[in-house]
């Protein structure tokens, strides 16, 4: 995985100071970062902008981390969520959201570990997205359209999936 790929990261944590500094570090690392301070805010932001990876704190007032990542997944099905959980809460976290989250990380986070996990989650996202893209392209070919029809449909797909 080439690091220079533009990985769009959505951060969600009610601890604002933490996000302020975490965003700065991740930006410098080369990520595109958007910081949000609640699940509700994140869902709003995700309606307008596409992200590759979300980093969600489990324990937040209002919409909690599990709920948030489920909602995000509905809006952006390929988005991979990394859920941050405190010690002891991990069991409940696993129960309620094992299928949906890419990974659970124990808080306090180790920065390097987080960066690696974001990159892995991004690869997973791309992989899933491309698999789905290929599937749909095949579908288009099977549909029996003419060459021009196929080209048009595939280009449209490329746009949807952000694949050049």
């Amino acid at each position: 995985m080439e690091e220079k790929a533009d990985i769009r990261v959505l951060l969600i944590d009610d601890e604002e100071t933490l996000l302020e500094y975490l965003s700065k570090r991740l930006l410098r690392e080369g990520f595109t970062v958007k910081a949000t301070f609640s699940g509700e805010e994140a869902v709003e932001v995700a309606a307008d902008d596409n992200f590759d990876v979300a980093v969600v704190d489990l324990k937040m007032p209002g919409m909690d981390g599990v709920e948030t990542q489920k909602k995000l997944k509905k809006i952006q099905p390929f988005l991979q969520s990394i859920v941050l959980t405190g010690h002891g809460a991990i069991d409940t976290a696993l129960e309620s959201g094992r299928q949906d989250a890419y990974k659970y990380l124990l808080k306090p986070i180790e920065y390097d570990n987080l960066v690696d996990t974001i990159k892995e989650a991004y690869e997973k996202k791309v992989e899933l997205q491309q698999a789905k893209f290929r599937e749909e392209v095949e579908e288009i070919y099977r549909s029996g359209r003419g060459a021009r029809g196929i080209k048009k449909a595939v280009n449209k797909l490329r746009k949807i999936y952000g694949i050049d």
Partner: protein
Amino acid sequence: MGSIDTKGLDSEKRHPGFSALGDDAHLAGAYLASILEHSGDIIFMLNEEGTILSFSKRGEEILQYSEKDIVGHPVQAIVHDVEAFENALSVCGKKGRVIVPELAFRNRAGTPESCDLCLIRIPNGQKDDHVFLGIGRELHCEKKLQDDLTRVDRLAELGRAASGIVHDINNPVAVIGEISGWMEVLISDASGLRPDEREELAKAVRDIEKQTRRCRAITRQVLNFARESASEKRTFDLHEVLQNTVQFLRSEAVSKNIEIVLDFMESPPPVQSDPERLEQVFINLLSNAVYSIKEGRTQGGEIRVKTSKTDGMVEILISDNGTGIPEELHEKIFELFYTTKPSGKGTGLGLPICRNIIEKLGGEISFKSEPGVGTTFFVRLPVA
């Protein structure tokens, strides 16, 4: 003992079992003799003046007197709380019966023995006076159990309170960690710094990070302690668990010239317990042992791990020939947050955690130690 005169007792007060004896004085005598011989209570009879007339077998055992030594003596000779006893006796004289929830007898060595006591006045129709029957039950076991339960409760309570605080502390600690990470970036990017300045700043920030990591280690341990995950009991091979634990620490021991000797009993009985938690206990005890030897001497260190069966329990001994624990600290070593290790090395949680685990598993943990000679920890676990 002779015949028993029950004329003085109201017939409706008689225990129904007694009527089965009918007028068979011999059977009644044998019945009474058996009670005195086999009852687990201190049963005694006093005359009106408080002179001891009879004394049960268990009473002899607990107070370490034989009946013939003590009969004919005033009851005060075997009572610790004399005033309370005399009060009870006088109330009993008036009311016929009195129950004292806790009263201490005194054994031959002078040690108080706490009992719950019931005194009953028995009218003696023939002589127109009365005698007193006393039944005392040892409180020792119940009291100890009660104390233990109170302590475990307190620890659990403390644990719950602590985990709340610790969670709250974790957040700012995480923020500090994040900020110091960012400062590290700023320092390495900054222009116009002399190399020595840059190095000093970088070191200062690394130290902040190191300290936040230390905070995390502490909070993690407190949370581990507080977590009330129910122990998962299953049957397993105790020796295997011990062997694994020893293996885990062997390289550290070898590097410090310490020999770990295993002295296992043959065919150990199966133990029903929680192997993961026990491993935690053994690691704790063994690393304490390693630590004590490291502090104590430079060569010839030995740690012995011995297993045996006693009183229907499995006993695990972990002994070292390290520095030992000074007498005045014996009371403190199981206290929360008490540690003799230099700051940053010990949290004062290891042994309280061990004790908590073992007691939750229905076992016991104790130790013997002599400064300069070494320390032995005893862990006893119920057999499956």
